[in-house]
Each structure stands twice: as C-alpha cells, then as structure tokens.
C-alpha cells in the first residue's frame, strides 16, 4: 500500500468516527465518550494532513497551532456556563473565518482561477465564512452586552440587504471573469468586504431574545463554510464534517423557530417584540394574590408532586444552586420534583439544561415540553422561576401576538407559584393572565434572595 492510500483511509476513518461520535450524543450516558471519539477523529484528520501535505515551513504551522490551542483551551476552561452562548457564538466566528481564509489564500495563489469548481467554491467559502465571522462577532457583542440587545432597524434595511446580495453575485461573476474585464484581485477584495458587511447587517436587526435562532443558524453556516473549503482543496473529510455541522445547525434552528412558533424569515426580518393593540398601561393593574417564603414553603412541602419551571431570569440571578437545594429538601420530604424546560428557556438551545446540570440537578429529572405537558393536570404545585411568555395561556388565544406558540400548560396544575421581580411583561410585551388566576400565588422578589429565603423556609417546615 502506498502512503497516499493510507492517508485516504485515515480520512475515511476520521469521517466515520465523526458520525459515530455524534451518534453517541443521543444519550447523556454515552455523550462524553462520543465527544472524545469526535476529538480523536479530529486528531486523525490532522495527523493525516501533516503527513500528506507538502509543507515548506513548519514554523508558522506550529506557531498557529500552539497559539490557537492555548487560546481555545483557556477560553474553554474559564468560561461561565451562563456565558456559553457567547462562547459558542465567537467559536462559530473563528470557524467561519478559518474556512474563509482557506478560500482567500487559495485565491491569492491563483487570482486567475476562472469559472470552475475551485473558483465557485472559493467564492462560496469566502461569502459564507465572511458572513459567519462578522455575524458571529455581532452576536457575541450583543450577548456579552457590549452593545444593546435591542433590534437595530432602519428604513429600507431589507432592500439594502437584497441589493448587497445582488452586488455580491455580480462581483463574484466578475472575479471569475464571467463578466467585465476588471482585475480579479480588486473585485475579489470588494466581494470579501461585502460578505463581512452582510454578516453585520443580517444580525443587527435581530433582538436579544431571538439569539438562540441566530447562534444555531451561524453554527450551520460555519459548517457550510468548512464544506465549501473542502471543495476548494478537494478534501472529502472537510466536505463530510462540514455537512454534518451544517445539518446540526439547521435542525436546531428549526427547533428554536418552532419553540417560538415563528418562521425563520420572521425572526430574520420580522421586528418582533412590539405590542401593537396591547394596552400597556393596563399591565399589572389587576389584583393578585401574593405569598412570602413561609407561605410558598407550606404550599410545596406538604404535597405529592411539584414541577419547577426555570426561565432565563433564574440564570440571570444565578439562583440555580439555591433552586436545586429547594428541590433536594422537597425530595427528602417525599415530594416528587421534576423540572420542565421550554425549548427557548435559555439563550441557546438546551442552555437551561446545562445550567441545571452544573447545579447538580440529575438529568433524568429534566423534562422537555412534549414529555411533561400532559402531567400538569396531575401536578399539585408548579413553581415558576424567572419565566413568563413560555407559560402564558394567551398562546391559546388565536388573537394574541403569541398565538400558537408552544407553552408549558402550568395553569392546569392545582397550585401555581410564580417567583418574579414584578408583574412586568416578558419579551412579547403582553400581560400574563396566569398571574391573576385564582390558584396562582405571586412570590415577588429577586430570584436569588427569594430562593435563599425559600431554602430556609422549607428547612424549617415541620
């Protein structure tokens, strides 16, 4: 067997192991091994490449690997779990940038590439990679709250984007020499600039609460950019791995959109969060029943079943550890405790599950919407912490702005306890009838302080 054949076999093994590794992510029991398998597949692909590629100078390659390895390792070790969306966001950006740079470097070594697989792939890699890079950067800045998470919109925004896409297509054609007789290098540079600009323009109109969709979509793009880079250099393992990531990102994007009952187009161009037809002055003016920590403890401590609904407010207040203590104390008293997690409960898909896992909540206690919704009518008490729109029964009203959004049917439980700062509306900007129901108790206050009070109160129960 010659060396080239061995290298190809190694790439094939690597691609296979990526699929095997991803498959192990289907259960929390096997997921960690799956991730290790995928990491091993990556190592194989890198080894095969350094053996196979003609390498003129090792210095730069080793410096680049060491630099990236140290930065990535430190970031992975230091990041807080609440900041996971930003981290994944910025990593997406680096992935997209790497693929774009592969395409750009290939172009620079042969600007007269002309029409063909290589030329078109270079343009696609640059375009998708460029959009991923600048879009992820904006998403990172928004999530890190270095700029306002509010949507930034201006008149003619969508028209401008459409024009830019057309200009990019024209410039792409000019780069390959299909139209015009301009210097390919100059045209290509403008093409790259427009790719970056498009990434910025596509993400700034999207609000903070829609970020799960954006992060998922950019994840998909980073995969597609890698695939395009694979076509540029004619490497199958890049094409396959990129396609896997592209599929993963797209599936998660669809799930997030479904969780909000909105189309991708609506998220991207929608301008959601306004509250047309809602009288905001009336919000929070109706009478509610409220309780203190002792009252809430008594409601939770003497029943058979409690379902906790954590929302993003819980994570903001960093109260997940106290929440777990309440859950443990209730279980010691013989109460069955489950956690119901809405698909868009955090700032990225599955974010809330990670935050609860970090707080040592057993993963078999975490239930998603489809698994738990039928249980609410048999539940004694529901404790909602920092969630609002995802438990708003208005979603069943066809005239509501959130009509059709999947919600957790908490109002069917015998007792509903809502821990919240105030009666202020959630992201949808509408009032929540749940707060005013006869079987609802409001437990006002900061989630962390209230939860600490609740831990004490449950402990003091007889």
């Amino acid at each position, binding site marked *: 067997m010659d060396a080239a054949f061995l290298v190809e076999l190694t790439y094939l093994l690597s691609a296979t192991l990526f699929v095997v590794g991803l498959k192990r*992510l289907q259960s*929390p*029991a096997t*997921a*960690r091994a799956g*991730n*290790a398998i995928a*990491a091993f597949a*990556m190592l194989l*692909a890198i080894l095969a*490449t*350094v053996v196979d590629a003609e*390498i*003129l100078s090792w210095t*730069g*390659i080793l*410096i*680049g690997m060491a630099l*990236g390895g140290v*930065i990535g390792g430190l970031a*992975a*070790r230091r990041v807080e779990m609440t900041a*996971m969306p930003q981290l*994944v966001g910025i*990593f997406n950006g*680096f*992935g997209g*940038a*790497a693929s774009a*740079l592969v395409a750009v*470097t290939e172009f620079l*070594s042969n600007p007269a590439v002309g029409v063909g697989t290589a030329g078109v792939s270079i343009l696609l890699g640059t375009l998708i990679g460029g959009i991923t890079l600048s879009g992820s950067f904006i998403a990172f800045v928004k999530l890190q709250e270095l700029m306002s998470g509010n949507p930034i919109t201006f008149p003619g925004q969508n028209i401008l984007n459409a024009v830019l896409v057309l200009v990019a297509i024209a410039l792409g054609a000019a780069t390959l020499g299909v139209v015009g007789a301009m210097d390919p290098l100059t045209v290509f540079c403008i093409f790259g600039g427009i790719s970056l600009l498009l990434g910025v323009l596509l993400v700034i109109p999207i609000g903070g609460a829609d970020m799960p969709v954006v*992060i998922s979509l950019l*994840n998909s793009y*980073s*995969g597609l*950019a*890698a*695939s395009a880079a*694979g*076509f540029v250099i*004619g*490497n199958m393992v890049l*094409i396959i*791995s990129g396609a*896997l*990531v*592209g*599929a*993963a990102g797209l*599936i*998660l994007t669809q799930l997030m959109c479904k969780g909000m009952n909105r189309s991708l187009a609506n998220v991207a161009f929608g301008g959601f969060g306004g509250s047309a037809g809602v009288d905001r002055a009336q919000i929070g003016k109706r009478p509610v029943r409220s309780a203190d920590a002792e009252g809430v403890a008594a409601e939770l401590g003497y029943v058979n079943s409690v379902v906790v609904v954590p929302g993003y407010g819980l994570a903001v207040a960093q109260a997940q550890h106290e929440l777990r203590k309440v859950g443990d104390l209730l279980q010691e008293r013989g109460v069955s405790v489950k956690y119901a997690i809405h698909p868009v409960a*955090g700032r990225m*898909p*599955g*974010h809330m*599950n*990670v935050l609860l896992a970090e707080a040592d909540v*057993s993963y078999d206690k975490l239930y*998603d919407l489809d698994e738990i919704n039928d249980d609410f009518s048999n539940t004694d008490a529901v404790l909602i912490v920092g969630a609002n729109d995802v438990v708003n029964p208005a979603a069943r009203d066809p005239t509501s702005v959130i009509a059709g959004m999947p919600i957790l049917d908490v109002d069917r439980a015998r007792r509903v306890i809502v821990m919240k700062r105030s009666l202020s509306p959630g992201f949808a900007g509408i009032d929540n009838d749940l707060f005013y129901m006869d079987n609802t108790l409001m437990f006002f206050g900061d989630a962390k302080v209230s939860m600490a009070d609740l831990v004490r109160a449950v402990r003091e129960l007889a």
Partner: protein
Amino acid sequence: MGELMVGLYVFVLATLAGREVITKVPPTLHTPLMSGANAVSGIAIVGAIVVAGRADGTLQAVLGVAAIAMAMINVVGGFLVTDRMLSMFKKR
C-alpha cells in the same frame, strides 16, 4: 464522474446522515451538541494546514497561519468545553 459530482454526492449524503443522527439528540443535550458540532467545524484546520504548508508568498503564509490558529481555537476550545459540560450531566 468528475470530482465535483463525487463531492456533491458526498455532501448531500453526509447532510442526510447528519440529519438522521442529530434529530435523535434529546433537547437536554442541545447545547453540548452545538458546541461539539462547533468543534467539528474546526475541521477547517485541515484546509488551513494544506494552504499554509504550500504558501509561496508572505501574505499567503500569514493568512494560512491565521487560519490554523483560528481553526485550532475552535477544535481545542470546542472539544474541551463540550467535555466540561458533559461531565456535569450526572444521574443521581
């Protein structure tokens, strides 16, 4: 069949395989799935090594090394942070 067509077949079939495998990942693991997928997209490192290795100009060499560094952030950071998260998922 030309190289382009082979590549397209591979791309389409890999997308379908990915769809089958990933649809079955439970929502509780969606964040690790995303950061893990992110690490896999660091496969661009392969392309980066190829172009950096054969770079014949200073600019190409610099861009190639930058691509390697960024892909490596993705690979090392992505797999490590995924492992860190998955190590927290325990059944008690």
